[in-house]
């Protein structure tokens, strides 16, 4: 499923969507950045509440398909700018991390 399809299916907020056709092949939820780099896989939808610009750098290094801010968290200005500059998909939702991870997993399962 593409990031655009996931966004539409879960009515996500699209803060930055420069690569809507990127394939989401899995998911990871976490806020400790090195933990994310150690565990997330390329193509993951990364769910986090961290919203500073280091999140953009981690997303680039780890090759995730998108960053998904949960709990209604909004990106700070620097993260938003960096996401747009570096071609990073940055989405948001008012749902909690647990619920959101469940929903992403459900949508991906239906695609199989």
């Amino acid at each position, binding site marked *: 499923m593409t990031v655009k399809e996931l966004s539409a299916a879960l009515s996500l907020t699209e803060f930055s969507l420069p690569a809507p056709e990127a394939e989401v092949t899995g998911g990871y939820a976490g*806020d*400790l*950045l*090195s*933990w994310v*780099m*150690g565990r997330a896989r*390329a193509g993951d939808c990364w769910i986090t509440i*961290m919203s*500073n*610009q*280091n*999140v953009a*750098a*981690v997303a*680039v*290094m*780890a*090759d995730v398909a998108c960053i998904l801010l949960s709990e209604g968290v909004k990106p700070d200005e*620097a993260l938003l700018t960096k996401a747009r500059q*570096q071609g990073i998909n940055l989405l948001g939702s008012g749902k909690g991390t647990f619920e959101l991870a469940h929903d992403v997993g459900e949508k991906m399962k239906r695609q199989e």
Partner: protein
Amino acid sequence: METIKLNYPVEGGDLIGAGEASSKMKMALKKLDLPPETIRRASICMYEGEINMVIHANGGRAEVEIAMDHIIIRMIDTGPGIPDVAQAMEEGFSTAGEIARDLGFGAGMGLPNMRRYSDEMDIQTTVGMGTTVTMKINI
């Protein structure tokens, strides 16, 4: 292919903007059309090294060598050194301060990640003199 040598300075003190050297290296590796997973592993190794340098050593520099079948990344700083390397290599051990932790760093996974994503890793460190971490990533 001749070995390509790249050098990147790593500014100290700016944890918010850290990652510039790693981003530049990643772009250089992409231009060489290397396998995506190799680029990903090298990028994470270098980014973790860069973050460590900014948090602990007030910056330093990175030397990158790209050969036919491997990439060498050397992270060189003149910071305080690592008193106990075995302890520093343990997952979850960190001496990072509150500011780093508030930004999502300091999980004690930096060096373990560098080991995880490299094929070979060597740490040369002297307390009060600095640290050089060398990582080899096979292509």
